């Protein structure tokens, strides 16, 4: 019971924050952040207490204590169908909870300053509360259906937070786009859940993992991929990644929390959970999608000028890495990367937020409402004005670029090793995976340094703006410092050898790479081990190329940017990158616009055509109706079956009225005629 209560606190604390703030936020006003922050603090404490329980893998003894706590409660039952809500906590869950709590706490802290002066200050914290609530729900969920429920709820909170500044034009659209794109994935996920339910008879993930063995492999592949569709949406994988860049319309701390560290990682987390029953075929698809995403997003990021857009594409790219890792059978590294990425990417976003904040204040000071505070071409040379931000950003950039001694190196290296071993094993087309992996690694290093150089180095582009730039206040810089510390490799491993990733963290998660229903994980893992060194050298090589190029072009300015752009444009790469591979346009062209057109057509058919068609079948009644066609649109709409028949009767009525001519002798004639007809005709029968 105590455990249950402790676990429930992860849900209760944030929802309490939400409820209190949504109803009493106006009264609390400035204190709302204090409330939110203190509740988050409690939660962080709780997460720390929880993780102490987690049992690490003992490398020497090769044993581990099986630590997990779980419990479930019947939500409702119709007799034969019972739906349970419950939690399942193991090492992975505990780490995720800690990540969420930590970053959540830091973002709360950061936001107290960042959001100051916003008219809906308290509502912002309320929304953060509901987000943390639903994110924790996903993490804790022991069943797919519960995961789906919170899955949707994070969608809601993401919608609310992206559209937080709804008075502007773009945020509401971005919010809609995010929600709807996610729903596309969710449909697949829902269908997948249903398939699994009707074959296994349970929504519980553990039971599904245990029970899928009797399923038809083809169907299981389908089911796995359908569930994975949810991850494609949530983790912004190709082809549903389009919402994430737009989602940057939300406040920057939100981007850090939701769209970099936690929510987008939920897809990876979920795929991690279902990994054991994904068939090899399904995993191949997963790997390819991850690879495409990683490379494509990285290429797109090169040409972004908006500081947050670069980070957004970088996030997509890194998520692609994680998905790819899952696909090639390295869930441990995927999860590792998830956590390290959460730290450094949150740090990057918060840094960029700090920069934007400073730019914004400066612009505000100048009373300039036209200049975009996020545009890197307006920045430059900020390192002197914002030393802490600069330092934090540099550290996290080194981490993401995969430089040794930084956390990103550890996890990315593992992923690349796994990809390489996968290629070694399967050969053939799988070459694209290492190409994408290493290529993206290089490009990542390149564009991240480009960002650093354009923002913090060089000559300030706009002097007057530069003049009013100040370092952000302490509440904002503390999170930066903390997160940048966590971006160092030693945060995850006490091992100072940059080439060894074993440490307390890996010990906690190591055993989760050992179970799979179809793959022999022993071989897979040993393959990864053996590819380790190849991958490491190669990745160091490509990373240094990327950094060197960046230094050459943007710091030393030895090479003209345009020339390179033209060079790449020979193969169309530059314009592809510039136009985000045209995906938005393509969607607009082949989905969105035709779809809207179709709905209009549907509505038109429903109102206009449907009736006419039916009435057509009634033959000449159509003639009657066609008279009105020209008169007005609306009157056509209403010539329906009922109207048609009513017209018919009215028409017959008018005709029949002529028989009642008013002349008595006609009446008599009519009587006689019918009488004769009856006598003659019917008598014959």
């Amino acid at each position, binding site marked *: 019971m105590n455990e249950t209560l402790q676990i429930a606190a992860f849900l209760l604390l944030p929802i309490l924050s939400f409820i209190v703030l949504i109803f009493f936020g106006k009264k609390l006003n400035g204190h709302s952040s204090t409330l939110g922050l203190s509740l988050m603090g409690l939660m962080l404490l709780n997460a720390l207490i929880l993780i102490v329980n987690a049992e690490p893998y003992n490398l020497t003894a090769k044993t581990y204590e099986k630590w997990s706590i779980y419990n479930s409660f019947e939500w409702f039952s119709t007799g034969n169908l019972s739906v349970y809500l419950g939690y399942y906590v193991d090492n992975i869950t505990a780490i995720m909870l800690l990540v969420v709590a930590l970053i959540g706490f830091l973002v709360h802290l950061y936001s107290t300053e960042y959001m100051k002066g916003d008219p809906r200050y308290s509502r912002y914290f309320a929304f953060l509360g509901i987000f943390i609530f639903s994110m924790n729900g996903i993490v804790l969920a022991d069943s797919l259906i519960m995961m789906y429920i919170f899955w949707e709820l994070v969608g809601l909170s993401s919608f609310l937070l992206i559209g937080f500044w709804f008075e502007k034009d773009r945020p509401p659209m971005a919010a809609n786009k995010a929600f709807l794109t996610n729903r596309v994935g969710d449909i697949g996920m829902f269908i997948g859940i249903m398939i699994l339910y009707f074959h296994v008879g349970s929504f519980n993930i553990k039971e599904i993992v245990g029970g899928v063995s009797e399923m038809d492999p083809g169907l299981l592949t389908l089911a796995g991929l359908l569930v994975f569709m949810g991850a494609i949406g949530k983790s912004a994988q190709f082809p549903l990644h389009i919402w994430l860049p737009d989602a940057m319309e939300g406040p920057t701390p939100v981007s850090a929390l939701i769209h970099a560290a936690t929510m987008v990682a939920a897809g990876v987390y979920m795929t991690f959970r279902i990994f054991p029953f994904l068939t090899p075929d399904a995993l191949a698809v997963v790997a390819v999608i991850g690879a495409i995403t990683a490379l494509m997003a990285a290429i797109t990021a090169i040409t972004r000028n908006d500081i947050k857009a670069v980070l957004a594409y970088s996030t997509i790219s890194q998520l692609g890495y994680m998905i790819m890792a899952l696909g090639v059978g390295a869930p441990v590294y995927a999860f590792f990367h998830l956590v390290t990425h959460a730290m450094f990417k949150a740090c990057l976003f918060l840094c960029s937020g700090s920069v934007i904040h400073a730019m914004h204040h400066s612009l505000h000071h100048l009373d300039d409402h036209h200049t975009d505070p996020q545009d890197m071409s307006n920045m430059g040379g900020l390192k002197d004005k914002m030393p802490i931000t600069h330092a934090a950003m540099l550290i996290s950039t080194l981490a993401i670029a995969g430089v040794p001694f930084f956390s990103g190196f550890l996890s990315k290296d593992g992923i690349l090793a796994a990809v390489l071993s996968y290629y070694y094993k399967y050969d053939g087309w799988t070459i694209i995976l290492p190409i994408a992996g290493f290529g993206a690694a290089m490009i990542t290093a390149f564009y991240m340094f480009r960002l650093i150089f354009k923002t913090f180095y060089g000559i300030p582009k706009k002097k007057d703006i530069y003049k009013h730039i100040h370092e952000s206040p302490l509440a904002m810089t503390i999170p930066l410092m903390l997160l940048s510390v966590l971006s160092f490799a030693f945060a995850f491993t006490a091992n100072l050898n940059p080439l060894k990733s074993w440490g307390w963290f890996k010990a906690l998660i190591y055993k989760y790479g050992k179970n799979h229903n179809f793959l022999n994980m022993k071989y897979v893992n040993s393959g990864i081990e053996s590819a380790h060194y190849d991958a490491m050298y190669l990745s160091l090589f490509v990373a240094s190329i990327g950094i060197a190029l960046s230094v050459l072009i943007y710091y030393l300015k030895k090479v003209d940017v345009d020339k390179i752009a033209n060079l790449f444009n020979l193969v169309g790469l530059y314009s592809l990158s510039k136009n985000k591979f045209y995906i938005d346009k393509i969607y607009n062209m082949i989905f969105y616009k035709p779809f809207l057109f179709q709905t209009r057509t549907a509505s038109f058919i429903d109102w206009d055509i449907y009736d006419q068609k039916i009435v057509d079948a009634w033959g000449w009644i159509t003639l009657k109706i066609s008279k009105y066609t020209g008169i007005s649109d609306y009157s056509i709409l209403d010539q329906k079956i009922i109207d048609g028949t009513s017209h018919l*009767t009215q028409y017959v009525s008018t005709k*029949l009225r002529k028989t009642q001519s008013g002349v008595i002798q006609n009446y008599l004639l009519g*009587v006689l005629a019918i009488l004769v007809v009856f006598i003659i005709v*019917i008598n014959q029968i």
Partner: protein
Amino acid sequence: MNNLQSIQYFLPELLIVQLALSIIILDLLSLKRWVNICVYIGLGCSALLLCQLSSPIDGFHIFNGMLINDSFSYYFKWIILISTASIIVISNYSKELDREYSVEFNAMILFVLLGMFLMTNSIDLLMIYLSIELVSIPSYVLAGILKNDKKSNEASLKYVIFGSFASGLMLFGLSWLYGISGSTNIYDIYNSLALVESPYMIYISLMLILVGFGYKISMAPLHYWTPDVYEGSPTVVTAFFSVAPKAAGFAILIRTFSILFTDANSLSVNTFPIHNVNWSLVVAVLSAITMSIGNLLALKQDNVKRMLAYSTISHVGFMLMAFSTTSVEGNIGIMFYLAMYMFMNLSAFFMVIHVENNFNVKNIEDWSGIGYKSPVLSIFMVLSLVSLAGLPPTSGFVGKVYLFRTLFATEQFYWLGIVAILNSVISLYYYFKIVKSMYFSEKVIEEKENIQAPVYTLIVLFSAQNILFYMYWSDLYNYIKGLF
């Protein structure tokens, strides 16, 4: 039974003759103010006398087999008497009628009443012809009682020509029937017909007789006179025509056809047409035509009376539907429906009279706003119209259910059921046209409403039965069932 013995079963009719003659005499003696009292007392007495008549199912053949007094006729007489009496009451409050001719009016109505009583009794070809003529001839006069009104005059002209033409055709048919069988008593004729080998002559005379009866009940194609006469006649007369003669017509139609042209010489058994002369199919077809014509033509009418005339035709069609099954259920259904129909139709007509009296309107669109001007009566009017349309929760619905039921019970003419259902939907439209006009328009009516207690009471009473019989009809139904 010989003539003297017969008298005791003939008292109500005698009283009516007496009454008619005496009010004419009273008029001659310039004692006009006694006329009304006299009529009321007389009708009351004849009602009492009617109560006294015990009528067994087999009935008494009176006046040497010219008439029969049985439970069947007894029931119809009540319907006829109630409707006629209410018409006489209402006629005192109609502004249309010339007070000067009230005695003639009453006398004519009483003669018609007598004729209708005889129609329900007749079992002899002679009496059939005579009673129909006795109803018709005063009716011609009644239709034209507004001497200086062109429409009334035209109505009576059309009525007389059409009526005498139809009765001429019927008489021709009767003469052939007489020739085939050699008798005028329908029971005797039945016995002879059973021996006839070729059914063709029977068929022709049957059709000609159907013309005569059909004209009385406004069956298509003999409905032509109905709308014109109904529109032209004073509303009170129209109301009168729309119920009592229809009931009498159905009585004579059912009795004659059931006895003469079926395999069974009785009203009380389900049976089939004689000699496979498939006249029930003819009736079914005519019923479909009748209801369709009635409903379709009613759709486009502007004049309320004319619309109600067509509505009457359609109701006749519905009743014919039950008749076409030549079954006891059908007869019961008709008798049951007639009771409902009498009340709802009369209350609707009385409302029309009330509105004409007060607001002087004839057309449907002129009815606008009456729902708010005369709220209570309007609610009852709506009730009556709903009932005429045959929707629950009203007795019209119950009645229609019984009519439909006969088709199911005898398992024939399902197609007719479908036609009837389609017709029901159509009928809604025009009944609701009145409702719409009454309520959906914002027109403010200036005229003051003058409420006359008897009119008011009758409308409310007759209309209230729509609910009453809807809740508890089984007693009435069981009663009718007991008559067979």
